[in-house]
């Protein structure tokens, strides 16, 4: 299979303009004849639904939650990047493009990233017009801050709730289109299957989570905006319902899954504390702007942090990376924390935590300034940990936060299934092997507001087939298959809950396919996952009924997909015999312990093709060609 990325020719600065001109337009009067399905209402899905409806298409939008406003984009704290260069500190579209390619460790598609940087400025304009209350300077103009690994201030923010405010902006736009009758909203629905007719996306089958009913929805094209798969680790900063199911159903129907091993571990989360724990909480990495990360120099030093004198502390990020210090990118900061903890210098009851210390910032700026910047985060920390970060340093440890891998898409954001588009975190995206802070919101909104609405028109005018009705046999087949799956879960006469399996899966993945990976560990993980999946088939217990709200049943369905996906992710990690970004293979590192890429052999996207339940998937490659950025060893020293 040849993976045609359909990147337009010409200089990188002109590609998107040229492509927009070359895409055929849908006659305005004809737009209302098309029905488009959007699954998911986060930044990507919400913005895409609203924008497609504004253009005149009929949109059917689905979400798993009780309201589209609750999608997990809402939890993003830090901010959104744009190349406005308001602070006059040397930023430009080119620099944002360059930083993103470099930050992604040269594993993203250049042309996509350049387009993202170009569009970034329009996003800010649009969000401000929607009434998003971004932070402002005294003069009333927009404020910027520097964020996670950037040496310019290009991050726009709304306190520590930027994701919430941007999502509410997209949700507002969506509400307007619902009221206008252009979007039909289906909350509390879970996509069960993707329906293909003649190899093209023709609709989906959903399950109503309140009644258990299966529903058939036909469309001219289907858009998946279903987020990432971080919950394969069970414990992550993702929401409870975040899952891989919709993407995996598309994969089973023939959409290639790209770079599944690229997952991001965020360096500043509240450490793990008990077996009953249901999630990990992120502390915005904006904290690293003022907090200093350290551990005791001596292993096993059990003195309280304030009792450890300055010269017995190791500010290891400042020591190892003098020019970026505490602001090194996420993958670098996370691995450095793991390294000091593995060496026995970690703190806290489990030994898997490091200090994030504000004493110097408080002394320099005063408590009030620090409270103004981070008050809500400090309160949140105190509430969860029961400790006062104004007095004692915070304890933090890395946790799974975001996934760069996802369904493979071309420049038009279309998957290998014609008519199936994938946007936001759900696609393999523009972030390569590592995403920079404040870039997820940018990409989700770029895809939804400004890219997909153009490119989907190209498909509708050139590639689409006449819409088939939901009475087509393919829909009934999908319903039967989905129903069979649900019944199997209900009937399994086992003794373990879905959560208990999921917790075990999470431990396998964290131990062997987490921050550091090696051949032996990954091979062990494959065996453990297969054994767990086998047990899951016979030893699951779900109580209650399939015809009413049943969260145990929902969890079982999502877990079944995570079990399949975990194996794919592990295989991808095994086959990528290099280290890059968030994918760190212990066998491939520099003498100083940094990630060592192999550009000769692995400067490509790995995209996996499903070959059936009992046949291993096939690995395809999309070569990555860098014409504008020179490949280099990332250095933050």
């Amino acid at each position: 299979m040849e993976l045609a990325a359909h990147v337009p020719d010409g200089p990188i600065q002109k590609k998107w303009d040229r492509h927009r001109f070359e895409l055929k337009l849908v006659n305005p009067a004809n737009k209302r004849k098309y029905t488009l399905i959007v699954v998911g209402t986060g930044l990507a899905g919400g913005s895409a639904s609203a924008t497609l409806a504004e253009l005149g298409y009929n949109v059917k939008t689905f979400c798993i939650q009780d309201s589209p406003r609750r999608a997990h984009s809402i939890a993003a704290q830090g901010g959104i990047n744009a190349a406005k260069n308001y602070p006059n500190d040397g930023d430009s579209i080119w620099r944002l493009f360059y930083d993103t390619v470099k930050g992604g460790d040269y594993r993203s598609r250049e042309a996509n990233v350049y387009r993202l940087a170009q569009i970034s400025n329009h996003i800010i304009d649009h969000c401000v017009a929607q009434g998003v209350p971004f932070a402002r300077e005294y003069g009333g103009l927009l404020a910027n801050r520097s964020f996670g690994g950037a040496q310019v201030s290009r991050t726009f923010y709304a306190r520590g709730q930027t994701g919430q405010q941007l999502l509410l902006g997209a949700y507002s736009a969506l509400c307007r289109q619902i009221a206008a009758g252009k979007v039909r909203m289906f909350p509390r629905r879970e996509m069960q299957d993707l329906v293909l007719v003649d190899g093209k996306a023709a609709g989906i089958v959903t399950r109503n989570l309140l009644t258990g009913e299966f529903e058939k929805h036909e469309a001219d094209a289907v858009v998946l905006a279903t987020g990432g798969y971080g919950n394969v680790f069970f414990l992550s900063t993702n929401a409870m319902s975040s899952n891989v199911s919709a993407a995996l159903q598309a994969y089973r129907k023939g959409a290639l899954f790209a770079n599944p091993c690229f997952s991001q571990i965020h360096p500043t989360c509240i450490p793990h504390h008990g077996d009953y724990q249901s999630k990990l909480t992120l502390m915005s990495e904006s904290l690293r702007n003022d907090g200093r990360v350290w551990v005791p120099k001596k292993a096993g030093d059990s003195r309280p942090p304030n009792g450890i004198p300055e010269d017995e502390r190791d500010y290891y990020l400042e020591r190892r990376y003098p020019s970026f210090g505490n602001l090194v990118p996420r993958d670098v900061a996370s691995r450095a924390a793991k390294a000091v903890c593995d060496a026995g210098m970690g703190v806290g009851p489990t030994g898997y935590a490091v200090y994030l210390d504000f004493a110097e910032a408080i002394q320099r700026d005063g408590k009030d300034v620090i409270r103004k910047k981070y008050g809500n985060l400090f309160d949140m920390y105190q509430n969860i940990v029961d400790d006062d970060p104004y007095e004692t340093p915070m304890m933090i440890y890395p946790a799974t936060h975001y996934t760069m891998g996802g369904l493979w898409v071309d420049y038009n954001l279309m998957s290998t299934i014609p008519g199936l588009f994938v946007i936001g975190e759900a696609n393999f995206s523009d972030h390569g092997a590592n995403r920079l802070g404040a870039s997820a919101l940018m990409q989700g909104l770029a895809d939804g507001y400004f890219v997909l609405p153009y490119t989907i028109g190209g498909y509708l005018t050139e590639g689409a087939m006449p819409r088939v009705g939901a009475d087509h046999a393919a829909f009934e087949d999908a319903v039967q298959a989905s129903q069979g799956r649900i019944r199997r879960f209900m009937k399994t006469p086992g003794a373990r809950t879905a959560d208990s399996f999921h917790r075990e899966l999470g431990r396998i993945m964290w131990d062997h396919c987490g921050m550091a990976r090696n051949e032996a560990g990954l091979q062990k993980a494959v065996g453990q996952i297969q054994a767990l999946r086998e047990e899951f088939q016979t030893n699951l217990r779900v109580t209650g009924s399939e015809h009413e709200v049943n969260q145990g049943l929902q969890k079982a369905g999502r877990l079944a997909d995570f079990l399949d996906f975990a194996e794919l992710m592990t295989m991808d990690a095994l086959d990528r015999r290099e280290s890059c970004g968030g994918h760190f293979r212990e066998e491939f590192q520099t003498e100083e312990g940094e990630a060592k890429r192999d550009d000769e052999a692995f400067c490509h996207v790995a995209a996996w093709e499903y070959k059936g339940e009992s046949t291993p998937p096939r690995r395809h490659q999309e070569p990555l060609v860098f014409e504008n950025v020179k490949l280099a060893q990332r250095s933050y020293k």
Partner: protein
Amino acid sequence: MTAETDTIRITLKVWRQKGPKDRGRFETIDVPDVETHMSFLEMLDVVNERLTLEGKEPIEFDSDCREGICGTCGAVVNGIPHGPEKAMTLCQLHMRKFRDGDTIAVEPWRARAFKVIKDLVVDRSPLERIMEAGGYISVNAGSAPEANTLPVSQEISDQAMDAAACIGCGACVAACPNASPMLFLGAKISHFALLPQGQPEALKRVIAMQRAMDACGFGNCSNERECEAACPKEIKIINIARLNREYIKASFGSKEK
């Protein structure tokens, strides 16, 4: 962690209701070993794991982000929406706030406009109807002017942000003796009324949203201030005052009748 992990025994009196038409009842569940570092919802997770293994139906409750921002979770704990702690959603409430031997009553949001779906899960979709009636600024993607062409004073922007922080959880409705969502509505009206971008549609918006609220069967505000006390995001009732002011302005100035 500085605080020692402690184990307490509690008695849950939790609302069980099969569906909207079932009358519902309290069920008493003994939970002998609650670790105080657990969050309230993690405690319910542990209870549900046990109920499932005993072949019983788990307690259905909604939750998603579990970091206090998505607005999905919520239950009335000992008579107070989201429980006894100030400025906190239920998912952020921790068991260390309870004592050994406590009996804890857990009920769903109760309001005529919110039907109980099952156990603690309620239907909050009437809040969607209010939003759809006018909770937006009509601007299409692609048409916006450069972001800095319209300065907004930091003070006004901060006030708009205070109002925009509402998470739409519905605790204000559950706390109000009239089951009024006017704190929710006031927050959205204030967010847009404060900003220059919100002005062109201000009159139309407040009338339409207020009408939608009435049509959903919600009550009105009678200044009990229970909503403000229960709000996990500390939205102030000044937003209701602003809503009323905007409404009066609109009643005179709007062509919408």
